[in-house]
């Protein structure tokens, strides 16, 4: 019992630090998680890390939460999952609460408004880069291009709710992979 509590607390501490020091979200955390849990503490094996990435990608939700929950569960069951997830969420939660108050105070300043006008154009560039990276990581083929195009047109021009497009694309993917995929992609 005491041993388990100790493991849960160190899980919390490890993921708290990971949450506090990784910028740019989930995928940026994977190397840190691997360093802390595989190399330093030997909680899980190297191949587990690959499984974590695969699972985090094929389940809904942020990659950071998925990997923290999965590692925590592997190491110490339900409570391990709970403390890891709490640890990874808490730093963002605290930091953003503080920043929200600060932003609220300063947002009426002219200089801050000008700054954000410049920043918006920069953010657009960052998202275009992220989009390009995801495109490169996606499998290529006629089916994939059709889905990309349909999803884009449905949301951007026909204003169909994203949630229905997600469900539809999952169903299309399922039908395609059960029927045509083996024949088309060799």
């Amino acid at each position, binding site marked *: 019992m005491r041993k388990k509590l100790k493991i849960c607390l160190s899980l919390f501490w490890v993921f708290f630090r990971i949450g506090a020091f990784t910028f740019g979200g989930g995928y940026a955390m994977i190397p840190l998680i691997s360093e802390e849990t595989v190399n330093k503490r030997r909680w899980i094996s190297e191949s587990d890390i690959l499984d974590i990435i695969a699972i985090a990608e094929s389940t809904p939700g*942020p990659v950071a*939460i998925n990997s923290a929950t999965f590692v925590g569960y592997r190491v110490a069951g339900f409570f391990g999952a709970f403390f890891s997830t709490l640890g990874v*969420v808490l730093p963002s939660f605290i930091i953003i609460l503080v920043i929200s108050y600060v932003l609220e105070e300063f947002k009426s300043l002219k200089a801050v408004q000008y*700054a954000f006008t410049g920043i918006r*154009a920069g953010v657009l560039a960052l998202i*275009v880069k992220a989009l390009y990276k*995801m495109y490169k990581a996606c499998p290529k083929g006629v089916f994939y291009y059709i889905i990309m195009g349909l999803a884009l047109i449905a949301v951007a021009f026909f204003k169909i709710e994203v949630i229905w497009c997600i469900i539809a694309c999952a169903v299309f993917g399922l039908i395609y992979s059960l029927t045509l995929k083996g024949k088309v992609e060799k």
Partner: protein
Amino acid sequence: MIFLKLFLTFFKIGAFTFGGGYAMLPFIKEEVLANNWMSLEEIIDFIAVSESTPGPFAINMATAIGNNQGMTFGAFGGIFGAFCATLGVVLPSFIIILIVAKIYDKFKNSTVVSGCMTGLKPAVIGFIGSAVISIAETVFVPNGFSTTIFTSATFYVSAAIFIGALIATFKKVHPIIIICICAVIGIISGYLL
């Protein structure tokens, strides 16, 4: 009841977005705009905040919006709102991963799961593409499209910043540095023009 609404909306976002980072953006954008919780400008500004602070985008967004909306009930209302929204976005992943961890081998080899992912991977790219279109509109033609934009100096400044930032990010300059430089250029050109 705003707190329940925050929880349920972010629960839905957490349960239906696949892939990390900006894969969540289109869905978050749609829900946030539909509820009038933030304008598109504020969402873009918040992406910049999120890039410059640690932690996942979805958590940051949930915390900020929850705090914003709960604030009408005072400071504790803000914290409680942030708590509800963050709990909402975390809970689906948490529950699903606990289940998946138990049936891991079945899950890993499931043709249904990999089949759905075949459709979801390219779909996410389409969704982000649509978000890029609406963000580009906000950045370049904030007051709607007309021929006068080609005579407005802010349009050219935004275009120059965008191109510069794009080159910088492909040269692997850190996002925080890019955001800081964009802010400085924004301030200078704001006072000059």
